[in-house]
């Protein structure tokens, strides 16, 4: 097939912009991994669950659409806390497999609850800035994705500020790097971790709402692809690296679109996973990951 430079550049633009959703999800995965060195596989599912609650709120109570973006993240924060309590809090600290498997169970549990409550039907989600499309010469920029990209940078700034400029951030980093020592110093580890889960949940709920708004539809079909892409972004960015999650999110979005353009939809994900494989072999710590010594 023949492609001109317009196809290629526009695919890159679209991919980078849509990658902002991946970046936001990667940020949440990263926060939790950074705090506990454990993966929360139910993270994307809780994000989508939050978006459903937001949508249900504006639908049932006929309140302004913008409230979906307030209620959704709050609900996802609550779901995040529940996941922490049920899948992480009471698991043995040194058993990495137990919380991983428990959170996979939570992922499917949330997915099935959503399917049960919605009969699996896609539900229209209010589209953000539906008519905002900015043509620049031969190219075009989707307003909603520009907004999401902008929001992800703002949120990244907020997270970085909280982690490095607040007592909560100090406690989180301490509990992450030296959990036993921090406990001996009087840092309430469980409270710190649950705060991180709530914070990450709120972030994910916002990402879930933005993703649903970008697609214009909420469906249980969203949870697994977003989980997989969020994990890929987290690993390629470097486990625990915030800027890595952001950069990898945009990168995977762009690469995904290029693979789609050049190789078609059936081979697209093969190449995305190949990139993941290459990173795991050649650069296992990801783009910005660092190895951290633990107790």
């Amino acid at each position, binding site marked *: 097939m023949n492609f001109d430079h317009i196809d290629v550049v526009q695919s890159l633009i679209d*991919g980078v912009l849509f990658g902002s959703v991946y970046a936001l999800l990667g940020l949440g995965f990263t926060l939790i991994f950074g705090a506990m060195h454990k993966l929360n596989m139910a993270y994307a599912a809780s994000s989508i669950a939050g978006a459903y609650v937001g949508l249900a709120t504006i639908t049932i109570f006929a309140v302004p659409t913008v409230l979906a973006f307030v209620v959704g993240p709050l609900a996802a924060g609550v779901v995040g806390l529940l996941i922490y309590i049920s899948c992480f809090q009471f698991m043995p600290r040194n058993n990495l497999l137990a919380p991983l498997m428990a959170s996979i169970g939570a992922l499917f549990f949330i997915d099935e609850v959503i399917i049960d409550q919605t009969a699996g*039907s896609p539900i229209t989600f209010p589209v953000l800035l539906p008519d905002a499309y900015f043509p620049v010469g031969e190219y075009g920029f989707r307003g909603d994705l520009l907004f999401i990209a902008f929001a992800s940078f703002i949120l990244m700034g907020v997270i970085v500020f909280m982690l490095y400029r607040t007592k909560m951030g100090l406690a989180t980093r301490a509990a992450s790097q030296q959990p036993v020592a921090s406990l001996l110093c009087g840092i309430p580890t469980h409270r710190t971790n649950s705060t991180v889960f709530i914070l990450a949940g709120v972030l994910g709920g916002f990402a879930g709402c933005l993703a649903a708004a970008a697609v214009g539809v909420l469906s249980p*079909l969203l949870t697994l692809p977003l989980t997989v892409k969020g994990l890929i972004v987290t690993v390629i960015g470097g486990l625990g690296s915030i800027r890595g999650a952001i950069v990898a999110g945009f990168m995977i979005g762009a690469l995904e679109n290029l693979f789609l353009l050049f190789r078609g939809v059936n081979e697209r994900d093969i190449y995305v996973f190949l990139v993941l494989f290459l990173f795991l072999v050649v650069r296992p710590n990801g783009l910005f990951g660092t190895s951290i010594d633990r107790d």
Partner: protein
Amino acid sequence: MSNSPLKALALVAATALAFASSSALAETTINIAGWGAKSGPLRSFGVNSEAVMKAAVARVNEMGGIKLKNGSKAKLAFDYHDSACNAEQAIAVARKVASESNALVGIGPTCSGAAAAMFGVFQKKVGDSGDTGLQFPILTDTAVRNGLAKISQWTFRNTPNEPDMYDKLWAWVAKNHPNLKTIYGGTETDQGHSNGTYSKVIVQAATRHGFKWSKGNIEGLTGKLASGFKNVLSSSSNWLQADTNFSVQARAFRRSGADIFIISSHPFTTCGMLKELKRQRATPKLIIGLTSSSSAEVMKGCAAEAEGMIIPTSFAPITPAAQEVAALANKNGGDADLHSAAAWENVMIIKQVMETVGVTGDPSMVQKERRMIRDGLESLKSTNGLIGKVTRVQDEGEALKPYVFVQAKAGNWVVVHDPR
């Protein structure tokens, strides 16, 4: 009068016995089974079919039930199982129903991929003693991909004939929109029905009626069913069922400059694609969709973006019977569409066949009566459908159903052509 207490006792005993006997007769039930996706992303298909099947069974019982061979009546009962649009699960349900229940016939499953795999475990040829496959009659309501019923002589379908419907649709488009000449399209490649119907049926039918692929000729595409289907797929701009980003595909559609866009997918990605096309200001003169998208889900998900899309369908609430079934489906928590409405027709067909062949309700006769019902289904030449007479294609186990063309208008599917 000395023995009057004894007489009274005998009378009471006789009455009680008679009452018990009549109760026992009234309790006779004929069982059938249904299965479809009641979990997973396509759960709405199973929910809709179950809702309609429930209404149909209730209607049969309101009419007195099934007339048995001895002239008495039996109630019709059904169980609905979850096959989740999954081949393994559909096979497991079929095996369980065939071996562990008294169900005389089954209705289902939801997805073409699951149906194709499931039909494969049935006995291929009736009476073949060397083939130990399942010997249980199936009358499918939903799985619609072309030609599935001929996998086994125990499998029958009451699903629309898509090659016929799309052939007539393109003929109608050519006649009513003579200014439209070129086509371009795409499909969700991981869904057997969407993919197969698009690459083997829809594009070929368009070619047959003189429409040209907007990006030049496709090698091997002659208009004959399935001709050049691999090249059709590689020339199209496709997506997957769980995709959320359609920007590359929509741009390919827009830049194709085609008069007509073909979107062959189920409601979720149909809506995603339509929304992206609108966002990119792609303005085809007409959009043709997949039969399965002529459903309430598209109207719930993207009514504004679907405006103008035309789809052939074997169900629309255009007759009193169809309107009644649509209302009953809603009452039971589902929607009647071209897939689920067939469940109503299937229950009525099964009632007719059972009464013709003369089932007994005797559990020891189950296997024999399954065979009798299979033979009865095979011998049917026509059946009564909700929007008209359905012709049975006897040697293939398939149906030729009446159809209409519906168009999305102001949040509803409106009939724009009714060839019945």
